[in-house]
């Protein structure tokens, strides 16, 4: 019995961690640009395929390739697709990120194909070890550890560095930050690069976990993580991470707690919860300042 509880908890923490990292990637971009980057899923996708392409190389190079792919794609989409729209209204930005996401996905299918491909990535992590008498998968513990480390690193970066301060300022009041000399292009590019790093990390972990690379691999993650960002509060990084974590953990916990008939509806439950949050607390659990328009 204790075994199952610990296993479920570890499941919840690891899935929650993955969604927290994904939500953070989305939240970072929203913070500085008010853009909900649906194409974040394609950053995850491109890393997966990069890992596949570089598979024959030694591991450090494979990882490097994967991370570079996401970072470069992130910077390119910012420069080419999103910069021209920088002052557009949120609805236009939303549609355009939708379009970019589809463009990237379909273009990849064009060059590769849409069939899922198997990949034996970091198989050593698939082994199990015994912790407090329970057999757990190393990979899950790695996911939890990586999530925590990355979250801490990002928090440190934002709080303790000059660039981080500039990003936080730009997220709250972009124009005022520019008046003070903060460079808009640089801050936004760094945000995109960071989101690329987050996406690549998530991708590596997911590929190690599922052993599959396919064009839609990022989209599913992003939809749920996006929901988490909304629950946690768009524009607040803590909110994004928390929301992503909660939604991820909730899917696992619902799986464990719901009666068998209703288990398949757990996604529906999660989304109903989202809708309720949007209705009753539209600014999210941890709202960010400066988001409301004043008359």
């Amino acid at each position, binding site marked *: 019995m204790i075994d199952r509880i610990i296993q479920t908890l570890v499941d919840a923490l690891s899935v929650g961690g993955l969604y927290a990292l994904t939500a953070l990637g989305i939240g970072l971009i929203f913070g500085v640009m008010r853009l909900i980057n649906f194409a974040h899923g394609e950053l995850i996708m491109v890393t997966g395929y990069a890992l596949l392409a570089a598979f024959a190389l030694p591991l450090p190079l494979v990882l490097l390739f994967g991370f570079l792919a996401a970072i470069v794609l992130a910077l390119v989409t910012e420069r080419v697709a999103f910069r021209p729209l920088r002052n557009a209204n949120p609805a236009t930005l939303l549609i355009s990120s939708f379009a970019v996401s589809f463009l990237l996905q379909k273009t990849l299918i064009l060059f590769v194909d849409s069939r899922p491909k198997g990949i034996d990535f970091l198989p050593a992590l698939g082994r199990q070890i015994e912790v407090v008498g329970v057999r757990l998968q190393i990979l899950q513990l790695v996911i939890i550890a990586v999530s925590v480390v990355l979250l801490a690193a990002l928090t440190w970066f934002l709080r303790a560095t000059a660039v981080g*301060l500039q990003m936080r300022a730009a997220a709250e009041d972009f124009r005022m930050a520019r*008046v003070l000399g*903060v460079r808009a292009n640089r801050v936004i590019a760094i945000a995109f690069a960071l989101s690329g790093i987050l996406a690549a990390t998530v991708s590596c972990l997911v590929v190690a976990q599922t052993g599959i690379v396919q064009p839609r691999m990022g989209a599913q993650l992003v939809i749920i993580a996006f929901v988490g960002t909304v629950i946690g509060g768009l524009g607040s990084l803590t909110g994004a991470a928390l929301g992503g974590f909660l939604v991820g953990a909730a899917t696992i916990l619902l799986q464990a707690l719901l009666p068998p008939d209703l288990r398949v509806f757990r996604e529906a439950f999660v989304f109903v919860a989202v809708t309720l949050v949007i209705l009753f607390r539209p600014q999210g659990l941890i709202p960010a300042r400066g988001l409301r328009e004043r008359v």
Partner: protein
Amino acid sequence: MSKGDPLLRVSGVAVRYGPIAAVRDVDLTVGAGEIVAIVGPNGAGKTSLLSAIAGIERPAAGTIEFAGRSLAGVVLEDIVTRGIALVPEGRHIFASLTVQENLMLGATTRGDGDAVRADMDRFFGTFPILGRRRQQPAGQLSGGEQQQLAIARALLSRPRLLMLDEPSLGLAPMMVDQAYAVLRSIRGSGVAILLVEQNAERAFALADRALVMNGGVFVLGGTPAELGAHPDFDAAYFGIGMQSEQAGR
């Protein structure tokens, strides 16, 4: 730039938003260390003029020179490096960041960390109340304190020209006192101030020279004493018919 040349020279500037001319034809000079006030009613074009100088809006006509160099084509982010600091209307402090972090952002373009810290310490020395709230989120400050913070933040870039847009707007009188206390403290320090205000009384108490703006042009100018005694002052401010012709060089 030779001695005697003004620090800021605005010549024949016009600012348009589509078909609407917010600023029609403006000449303005501000000397080094001088405090110049621009007063006028809502919609006179005062904010648009500041926006043109700060690089937020591109002038449709005219030239703007600062310290002998043209400001044409200078982007908003670079204004601070040229030596101009803008305190926009509405304070715009970063409410979620601490008082200290807000100040640090003022020094974004400076590289001399020690001098920045010295400047900050000096500011906290002059305004100990803010010093006590160094680590608090700036959103918790009162309106007047926030305005002080906004001005101090702008000063932290060690500008040669400080531009303020309506610092007294939306503040209770006591808070306006706090804001103007900061401005008075830098009088004589060599920093020129270009002050835009609807509240002429306050501005006049501080300024060396003042201009009345209405309908996109300057309609009257002189020292505060001269303007206060001028028969056409009210008319100029409120835009009713005037006897004297356009002034304001």
